[in-house]
Each structure stands twice: as structure tokens, then as C-alpha cells.
């Protein structure tokens, strides 16, 4: 392992130097990227196109004929008057979760990464262990638990159980572990309080990861179908995913499915677009006393 001989005091630059790369590499890179992009985007594009196809089960390849595009599928799906309510529920569910999970997970991740305390490894693996049991097995026990707390069909029951996100904790730990120990030792020598270390040192350094995690947590909750379905009994508690499903007959034609999907995808893309710029932030290491 290379030893940390000097503390980097300068803002890190993220681009790798262009000089020294062979000309061939400069061609293959964009080509490779574009090819992968096309393969990735093709099925997705198909989904959106099919959503615009005229209703009545016309499928590939007729479906992709732009002259027949129509909004009919969307109006059918959007016909419900409960959509604002569902959207509000989904937003509450997703946004509150993002805020809480980011906070809790980073704190817990920090504790697991940098603090030594008895039973740390075991506790960490207990967190991991809960990820390994498939949720279909814990669905009924979870529901019974929530039901005994009388939280069924309420925001409490919907949101609180999902705040304990082991995967987020795991992710945070892995990133925080990389931060050099010297940073923390210095801060303690300086007499900084626990909370300050956390907010002034850890948080800024893991900003890109926080942004990444934020996007994921939002997505996981926005797209979640099973838990809101099982917890929400009445119409007013349904989220967008569940609500849209109540508008579908037992085997909806593919156009309607895709229209509903396109609608739910739009906010996710918006969130991703907004948070994108935080992902490019370089990791800044503030100047440290030698």
C-alpha cells in the first residue's frame, strides 16, 4: 500500500491528463460509450414510444409508427380524480424518507467506520443480515408488528419502518472508511466536539455519495409498490404506484402499462437531473495543519 507521505492541500482535479494516451484510445472511448448508451436506451425508448401508440393492442413494429401517436393512453390513465392525492402521498413518502435516511445512515455509517466500540463487527453484520432475508419472508411479520402498533393505514406505518435502511448504512460505512484516520485524530487533538466533527468534516467529504444515496432512496420509495399497497387500506393513503394500479383491469394492454410507467418515471428523472450536479463534485480535502 502506498503510504500517505504528504497531505494533499490542493483541490483535487478530476480529469486524467490527456497527454500520454494513445490516439486510438481517444476514438474507442466515445464509440464504446455511444454503443453502450444505445443498447441501454433502446428498451427504454421502446417503452415510451409504445405508451404513445394508439390503444387497441397494436404492438411492435406498428407501434413505433409516429404518425399514429396519441395521448389516449395517458388520458385514460390520468382520468382519476385521486391523482393529486396519490402524488402527494408518494412525495411525502419519498422526501421524508430521503431526509431521514440520509441523516441516520450517515451517522450510523460514521459510527461503524471510525468509532471503535465493543460488538461493532457483530452489530454491523446484524445490519447486513437483515438485508439477506428476502422481504417476502418478513412481510407478514412486519405487517403484524405495524398492525399491533395501530399504524396500519397511516403515514406513520407507511414511512417509519422504511427509515431503517441497512443498505444505506452499509454504503455510508464503506465510503467513510476510506477517509484518512489522521483527519479525525487531528480534529480530536484540536478538541472538536463529536457533532462538529460529523458536520464539518465527514459530511462535506462524502457529499457525492450523499447525493447518490439521496437519489436512490428517493427512487426506492417513489417506485415502491408492495409496502404502500399492504399498509394503505383506504384510497386516501394510496401512493401513486398503487393508485395507478387500481385503474388497471386485470390484464391491461401494454400501451396502458407503459403510459402509467412513463408517468411515474418523470418525477424520478427530474430528481435525478436536479441532483446530478452534486455527483460531479470532487472530493475536497481542506487544508490541514502539517
Amino acid at each position, binding site marked *: *500500500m*502506498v503510504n500517505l507521505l504528504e497531505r*494533499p492541500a490542493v483541490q*483535487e482535479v*478530476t480529469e*486524467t*491528463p490527456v497527454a*500520454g494516451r494513445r490516439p486510438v484510445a481517444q476514438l474507442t*472511448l466515445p464509440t*464504446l*460509450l455511444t454503443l*453502450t*448508451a444505445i443498447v*441501454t*436506451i433502446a428498451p*427504454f425508448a*421502446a*417503452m415510451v414510444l409504445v405508451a404513445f401508440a394508439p390503444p387497441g393492442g397494436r404492438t*411492435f413494429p406498428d407501434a413505433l409508427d409516429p404518425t399514429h401517436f396519441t395521448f389516449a393512453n395517458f388520458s385514460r390513465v390520468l382520468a382519476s380524480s385521486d391523482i393529486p392525492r396519490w402524488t402527494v402521498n408518494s412525495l411525502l413518502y419519498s422526501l421524508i424518507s430521503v431526509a431521514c435516511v440520509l441523516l*441516520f*445512515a450517515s451517522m*450510523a455509517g460514521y459510527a461503524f467506520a471510525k468509532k471503535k466500540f465493543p460488538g461493532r463487527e457483530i452489530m454491523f453484520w*446484524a445490519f*447486513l443480515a*437483515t*438485508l*439477506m*432475508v*428476502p422481504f*417476502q*419472508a*418478513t412481510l407478514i*411479520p*412486519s405487517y403484524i*408488528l405495524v398492525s399491533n402498533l395501530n399504524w396500519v393505514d397511516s403515514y406513520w406505518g407507511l414511512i*417509519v*419502518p422504511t*427509515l*431503517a435502511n*441497512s443498505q444505506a448504512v*452499509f*454504503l455510508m460505512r*464503506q*465510503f467513510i*472508511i*476510506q477517509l484518512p484516520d489522521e483527519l479525525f485524530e487531528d480534529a480530536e487533538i484540536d478538541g472538536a466536539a463529536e457533532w462538529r466533527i460529523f458536520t464539518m468534516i465527514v459530511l462535506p467529504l462524502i457529499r*457525492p*455519495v450523499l447525493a*447518490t444515496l439521496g437519489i*436512490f432512496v428517493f*427512487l426506492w420509495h417513489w417506485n415502491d409498490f408492495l409496502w404502500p399497497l399492504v399498509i394503505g387500506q383506504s384510497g386516501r393513503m394510496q401512493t401513486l*404506484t398503487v393508485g395507478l394500479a387500481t385503474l388497471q383491469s386485470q390484464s391491461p394492454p*401494454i400501451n396502458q*402499462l407503459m403510459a402509467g*410507467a412513463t408517468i*411515474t418515471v418523470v418525477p424520478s*428523472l427530474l430528481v*435525478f437531473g436536479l441532483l*446530478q450536479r452534486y*455527483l460531479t463534485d470532487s472530493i475536497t480535502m481542506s487544508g490541514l495543519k502539517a
Partner: protein
Amino acid sequence: MLVLFLVFRLLPVVGALLLSLTDYRLSGTWDFIAFDNYTRLLSDGMFHQALLVTLIYTVIFVPLTVLLSLGTAVLLHQVVWSRGFFRGVFFLPYVTSIVLAAVIWKWIYDAQDGLLNGVLGLVSIGPVDFLGQSGSVLPSIAVTSAWKGFGYSMLILLAGLQAVPKSYLEAAMIDGAGTWQRFRYITLPQLRPVLFFVLVIETIGAFQVFDAMYVMTGGGPVRSSYSLVYFLYDSGFKYFDFGYASAIGLVLFLIVLIVSLIQRRLVGRDD
């Protein structure tokens, strides 16, 4: 956090454990039957089949996804000006739900007029029944899941790549190390904790595969895409044998735990 975790994560798992030792009926009545569920499980041919399917699937899926995400992360890391755009594109599949991804890909794989067979037809191959043959069904589903999920690991690996201190790489370059050597001796080791995360998460995901198979093949043909979680789902929600289903869940957990511990030995040693 701890309270939340204990109450809402650990408790249901313990609940599932207890369930697996009983023969719980929906109405709430149950008899304690100790390990009967487990002994039945071990001699159940369906369990062996599901286990085999899941293992094969995992072996195909995990390398595929990890390499794909690592590859795209590395590619993206090199690029600056169009990074945002490409990153967005690669992330698109992740934004869809797995059910929809499965529906789209099922249509792509369709034996008669799917997109893939259409393309193959242009070079006079096929038509190939991707989802209808036991030899090709698992790789096909693996590709679908990889397509859907690689954006997640890619973003995380990308963040990890950005955390590699440039000073190390510069120092190595000054010392005359080539691109591959820099990657192998500096980047990869620095990436280790993150790589461990990706490996474990993708492995867990592979072992828990269900939705894609449910939508695309129904577990067929002849159970060649019948995963352990599918078996669990049927036992619990189709046949209402919740005790048995919980037992399956716990066996699955044990297997994944062992695999993760092995991975930890190989990759996860944190410095």
C-alpha cells in the same frame, strides 16, 4: 437509528424465524412444530431445483453486473464534457420498475416477433426461443436484470473512483507505471471497500431474484427459472403455508451470509 433498526428490521426477521418453527395459519392459530419445516425442506425436490436455479443464476448475474458497472464507471470516469449526459442515459433503466423492465424485455425476447429475433433475422439466425429453452432462459433473465440494475452500482463505483486520490496516480505515473498497472495497483485497491459493497449487494440481489422471473416466464419452462424466492412466494402467498415459507427465507439468509463471509475474506479486508 438503533431503535428503528431493532424494531422494524430485526424484529420481523426474528418473527420470521419463529414462524419457520411453527405451522402458522392465517387466522392466527399455530402449532409449534420445531424443525419439521426444515427437514421437509431438505428432502423437497422443489427446494433442490430452486436452489440449483438460484445458484446458476447468481454465478451468471454477479460477474455480469459487476463487470458491466465497473466498465461503464471506468469509461465515464475518463470523460468529462459529456459525462452528465451519458451518466443519465446509463441510469435510465434503473429508474424503471423491474416489472416494467421485465415486460419490455419479454417482448424483446419474444420467440416469434421480438426485437432481438428481428435483428438476428437480418443475419439469418434463429428465431431463437430465449425464454422457452432451459439452456437460455437464465442468461436471458440475467441480462434483463443486469440492464435494469447496473446503473446503481455504476454510480457508486463512479463515486468511488472519484475518491481515489490523484496524488497517488500522479506519483505512479511519474514512476513510469502504465495505465493498466496504475489501475491494478492503485485504483483497484483504493476501490476495495466500495467494490466489496457492490459485490455483496449484487450477490444478495441475485439470490433474491423473483419479479423478473414471475413476469417473464412464470418460473418455467419446467421450473428452469424457478428461484428460491419464487418458491418462498408460492409457499406463502399461494399455498398459505407461511411457516414453510419462513423456513425457506431463513435458509436463503444462511446461504447468502456464508457467501458474503467468503467474499469478505477475498475482497473486503478493510485496511
